[in-house]
């Protein structure tokens, strides 16, 4: 944007058609702040209007074309120059020419594929956005509007419990059990720790949730571990035969669904870390991966048909078919 703008300039504004009804969600930005963005699901149509407002009324705006793009891209923070676009759609709004007055252009990206969930992490960001551009000879005028995409799943068919006996020979044997291996983001981890042999002096025991963000490939793999939660489940020394219950509500923690090898660029995985601490502050731990998934909200009348189709693409279960029938009924 030049300070000395002789000639015409314009402001671009992108407005969605369903801005009144579409849900907004909070999403963390790179610098840690939280902002609200429109929420979309895979398969939903993105439609709206691009308002071009001329700054100096009366003067013409010459341009080499006006277009709007829908982009889904992965940005690795250590490699900012290279954006990896996995979705790139473009609609031309105006051929090269000139605008004599402010104008509004309609656009529609129908049933857009949004295969991955929006993610802002420590070393990588996956984002979706609309970008309207007025191309000009010297400098383009553009405006971006970020949206947030959530990927939904339904209850997995196979969800076995995690049950294992671990320990240090002749010192400590425990059997731990977690009721499931796949949890949705508002689920509860129900489990227990059973002490078979205790020959060390335990002071307390806790469960940590660790998020591991992996970026890079081959020899340049980088893991960033972050302890999302620490939850003490036992205070004091247990003896043989003692059973300690675990009940950990996940809704209170900021987590994303498990993301495995997204576009071969990054992964976000979650682990439960069971930690026992003895009186000399020695730590004994056992880490176990869990899969986190995002459950769709209760179908409301405003939830679009497309979102139901989208959720059907995952773990297609009979409940999704029922939801489709319900949505059809609701819209009638």
């Amino acid at each position, binding site marked *: 944007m030049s300070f000395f703008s002789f000639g015409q300039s314009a402001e671009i504004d992108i407005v969605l058609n369903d801005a009144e009804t579409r849900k907004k969600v909070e999403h963390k930005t790179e610098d840690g702040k939280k902002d609200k963005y429109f929420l979309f699901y895979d398969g939903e149509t993105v439609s709206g209007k691009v308002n071009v407002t001329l700054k100096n009324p009366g003067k013409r705006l010459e341009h080499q074309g006006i277009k709007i793009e829908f982009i889904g891209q992965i940005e690795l923070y250590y490699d900012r120059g290279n954006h990896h676009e996995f979705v790139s759609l473009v609609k031309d709004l105006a051929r090269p020419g000139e605008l004599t007055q402010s104008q509004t252009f309609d656009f529609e990206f129908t049933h857009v594929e949004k295969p991955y969930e929006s993610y802002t992490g420590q070393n990588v960001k996956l984002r979706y956005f609309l970008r309207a551009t007025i191309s000009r000879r010297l400098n383009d005028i553009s405006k971006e509007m970020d949206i947030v995409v959530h990927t939904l799943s339904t209850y997995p068919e196979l969800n076995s419990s995690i049950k294992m006996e671990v320990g240090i020979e*002749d010192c400590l044997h425990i059997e731990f059990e977690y009721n499931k291996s796949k949890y949705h983001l508002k689920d509860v981890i*129900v489990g227990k720790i*059973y002490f078979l042999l205790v020959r060390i002096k335990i002071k307390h025991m806790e469960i940590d949730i660790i998020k591991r963000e992996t970026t890079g490939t081959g020899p340049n793999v980088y893991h960033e571990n972050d302890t999302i939660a620490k939850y003490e489940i036992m205070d004091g020394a247990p003896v043989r035969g003692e059973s300690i219950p675990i009940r950990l509500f996940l809704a209170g923690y900021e987590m994303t669904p498990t993301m495995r090898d997204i576009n071969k660029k990054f992964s976000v995985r979650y682990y439960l870390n069971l930690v026992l601490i003895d009186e000399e502050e020695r730590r004994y731990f056992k880490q176990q991966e869990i899969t986190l998934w995002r459950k*769709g909200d*209760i179908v409301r009348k405003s939830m679009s048909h497309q979102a139901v189709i989208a959720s059907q693409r995952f773990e297609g279960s009979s409940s999704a078919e029922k939801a489709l029938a*319900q949505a059809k009924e609701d819209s009638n």
Partner: protein
Amino acid sequence: MSETTVADTRRLNSKPQDLTDAYGPPSNFLEIDVYDPQTIGVGRNRFTTYEVRMRTNLPIFKLKESCVRRRYSDFEWLKNELERDSKIVVPPLPGKALKRQLPFRGDEGIFEESFIEERRVGLEQFINRIAGHPLAQNERCLHMFLQEESIDRNYIPGKVRQ
């Protein structure tokens, strides 16, 4: 897809605890005291020994009760053996106090009462931290230190199995 069910948070089934386990003595009893410092010898050949008394019910230790006399250099020997053979990070010993061993001091140097007490406390913390470590409990040097009358510095290092 209207899932209004509340999550099932009932406890998982577990075996009831045997009352003898619940109210019996814990199987992790291990107490080591370092006390009764005695300075023996005369003049420049003096040194201080401490009584190291151990009481335990851990099966890895042959004797459930033992009492031996050890001096600072014995603790140093144990530290070196463990640093070489075991995988543990060995905690620090109380200081060697070389400055106190220089001549022309106004006080008793390393035979000063307050210094001996300070050292005694440090040695007690040291030996308790080590003896409670599962990886150190396998080392023959630790067993010899705690439970044999004297330390044979020509011993064959190795692991103890139950």
